[in-house]
């Protein structure tokens, strides 16, 4: 199959049989054409495909998303490396973006990630098949799949999506307000240490393990430093818990213009631009909203069960 530009296709399936019926022709086409194929899914899905392929499984590259982690922002750098490794040659991929999404916020970020793929790979020649399990995902998620994908496949039929929005603004909109009263702290350059102390104390109180405390503190410190450097000299920190998550957000007066912020692997030669990259490496979920009214970045971390009284 001749490819032009980035083809972003969704596969809506129910059950393993439909999953295989939807993915295997795509896999076999790639093998027949000699197109490099990367399958980045959870272990269970990878095993389904590998069993079906038998000895041909060795011709396919698998990345275990259970090991990469659940943050949807980690996927674009992974695909970027794969596409770049093949220097402009047509390549194919199979992903499952919502595989680990267990909350409304995570599903929202999956949708934004899918929209960002259209932006990130506009100029690349490759074909990505994103599998969505219709049995476990709600109607709202399915409706958003139609906005982020050019092609939709279901039960053996593939059609162009009439609702496809190739140029969606992926940083627009507002985050829902905190569901419990947050601890609020206004900071500037000289309060970065105090920001870290507040976040560390909250993280320890939430029962996070020492490494998770340090990761959360480091990510929050990066957000605050970004506010100081790019957001008008400072910002407002909010810290609260919702269900079994600890959240921190930083709001400032800045405007982020690069929609792929935090998803572009920093070069060793570049001097700045590592703050949100780090936050994505360190947290399960990072939500970025930016517009004329300012920028808000929110981090989620799972708290240890029963840590909240």
């Amino acid at each position, binding site marked *: 199959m001749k490819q032009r530009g980035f083809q972003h296709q969704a596969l809506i399936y129910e059950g393993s049989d439909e999953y295989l019926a939807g993915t295997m022709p795509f896999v076999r086409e790639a093998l027949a054409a000699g197109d490099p194929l990367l399958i980045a899914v959870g272990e269970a899905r990878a095993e389904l495909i590998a069993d079906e392929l038998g000895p041909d499984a060795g011709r396919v590259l698998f990345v275990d998303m259970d090991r990469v982690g659940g943050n949807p922002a980690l996927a674009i750098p992974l695909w970027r490396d794969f596409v770049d490794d093949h220097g402009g040659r047509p390549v194919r991929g199979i992903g499952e973006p919502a595989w680990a999404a267990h909350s409304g916020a995570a599903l929202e970020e999956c949708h934004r990630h899918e929209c960002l793929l259209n932006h990130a790979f506009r100029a690349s020649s490759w074909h990505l098949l994103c599998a969505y399990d219709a049995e476990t995902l709600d109607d709202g998620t399915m409706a958003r799949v139609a906005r982020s994908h050019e092609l939709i496949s279901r039960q053996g039929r593939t059609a162009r999506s009439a609702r496809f929005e190739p140029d969606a603004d992926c940083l627009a909109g507002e985050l829902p307000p905190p569901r419990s009263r947050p601890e609020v702290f206004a900071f500037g*350059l*000289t309060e*970065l*240490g105090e920001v*870290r*102390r507040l976040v*560390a*104390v909250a993280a320890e109180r939430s029962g996070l393990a*020492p*490494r998770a*405390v*340090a*990761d959360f*503190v*480091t990510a929050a*410190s*990066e957000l605050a*430093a970004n506010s*100081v*450097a790019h957001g008008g000299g400072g910002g407002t920190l909010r810290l609260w818990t919702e269900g079994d998550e600890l959240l921190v957000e930083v709001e400032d007066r800045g405007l982020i213009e690069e929609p792929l912020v935090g998803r572009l*692997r*920093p*070069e*060793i*030669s570049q*001097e*700045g631009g*590592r*703050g949100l*990259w*780090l936050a994505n*490496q*360190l947290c399960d979920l990072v939500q970025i909203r930016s517009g004329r009214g300012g920028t808000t970045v929110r981090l989620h971390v799972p708290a240890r069960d029963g840590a909240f009284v």
Partner: protein
Amino acid sequence: MGRPALAGAAYYDPALMQRFNVTASDLRPGCRDIQVEGELDLAVASQLDEVLSAAASECSCVLVGLDRCAFSDSSGIAVILRAHNRMQEQGRRLGVYGPSAQVLRVLSMTGLTANGLVFDSAEAALAALDPES
């Protein structure tokens, strides 16, 4: 380096936090050891930048000791990288050594470990970077 190091200690312990300080000493002419203490963030990165910039223009080999650096953000890493990149253009070498657990995570996630800039100890860094060691 007889003082206790933070390497291997807690990832981030507010009780261990201390004021930022940077000191430099020449191990021999042209080879400088820069010691970073406390928390390295955007508020103090310019202090390290000043010391590193001087070293980058005066020395052929620069070591940055992080064993007493309890925390670093990416602006600290950026300052170190800027000095490294400037030195590398002139065939000179810079390496960091002894990072604590938190600092090592930041270094690895920003690509410094993969680029061979990070060493366990001053001795290991010297052996790799200093042509006269």
